[in-house]
């Protein structure tokens, strides 16, 4: 581990302590970053229970590879990369039912948002994200929901910044089509 390049000394101390077997230090890391991981996995997967499993997998995977953490990036970015990759794997794993039921913006499977109970903005966000292709969804989630910069998003997804910007623009266009179709805008 390259201690000098770590951005947060506090995170470094916790990681070193966790590597020495101190589980309460690792628990502190989990508590510190679970909100970041929750935002990404729940927004990407759409189902809270499945996202919870993926979230656990993110931290367990990090625990097992903690010694390889170089500190080149912030811990939040590092965990976000694991969360995005595991979420995309999960989406790919169940791609049969996922893509066929959600990818077509113009299909009739969009729920009608006429009743008051389903007018909740969180439902609208959830439904519209599910309708986005995973490649656009991941950019929208990282930029708009998680609030990462374009540079950080590019680093997490391992794509050029220009690609992030173009996917973001196309993703936003598709989102607009979706919420227009939902008749909430």
């Amino acid at each position, binding site marked *: 581990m390259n201690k000098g390049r770590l951005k947060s000394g506090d995170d470094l101390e916790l990681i070193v302590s966790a590597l020495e077997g101190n*589980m309460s230090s*690792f*628990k502190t890391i*989990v*508590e510190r970053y*679970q*909100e970041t991981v*929750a*935002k990404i996995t*729940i*927004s990407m997967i759409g189902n*809270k229970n499945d*996202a*919870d499993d993926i*979230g*656990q997998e993110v*931290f*367990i995977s990090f*625990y097992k590879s903690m010694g390889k953490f170089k500190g080149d990036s912030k811990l939040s970015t590092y965990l976000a990369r694991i969360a995005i990759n595991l979420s995309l794997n999960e989406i790919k794993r169940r791609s049969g039912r996922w893509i066929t039921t959600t990818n077509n913006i113009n299909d009739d499977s969009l729920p009608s*948002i006429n009743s008051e109970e389903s*007018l909740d*903005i*969180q439902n*609208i*966000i959830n439904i519209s994200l599910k309708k986005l292709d995973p490649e656009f969804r991941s950019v*929208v989630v990282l930029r*708009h*929901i998680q*609030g990462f910069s374009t540079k950080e998003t590019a680093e997490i997804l391992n794509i050029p910044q220009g690609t992030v910007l173009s996917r973001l623009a196309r993703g*936003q266009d598709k*989102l*607009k089509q979706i*919420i227009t179709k939902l*008749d*909430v*805008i």
Partner: protein
Amino acid sequence: MKKIENMEQFLDSMANYNPKFDDGFSDRIIGKLDDDQKDTSNSFPEFVRLFRWVSLSGVAAIIILLITIYTTEGSFDLDAIYGIFNFSPDNPVLASLDY
């Protein structure tokens, strides 16, 4: 009245979207890691126990084989072990093999 005024408002709403895991998330992870560690620490003695039974079975089979050879051939000669103790060099089969 529409729920969303314009796209900017929708994107602002996304920034405030803050889904959370159920309570006890960190405890569930620590519990899983503890279970994993217990499984790992238990797996080596389990391997040793299995290896002991496999090796004991092997030794028992060898002893039974040796006893059988001795009782049938009356010797532990290499020929007895090969099962050709009763063959003589003029046996046609052995002769053809240039034994």
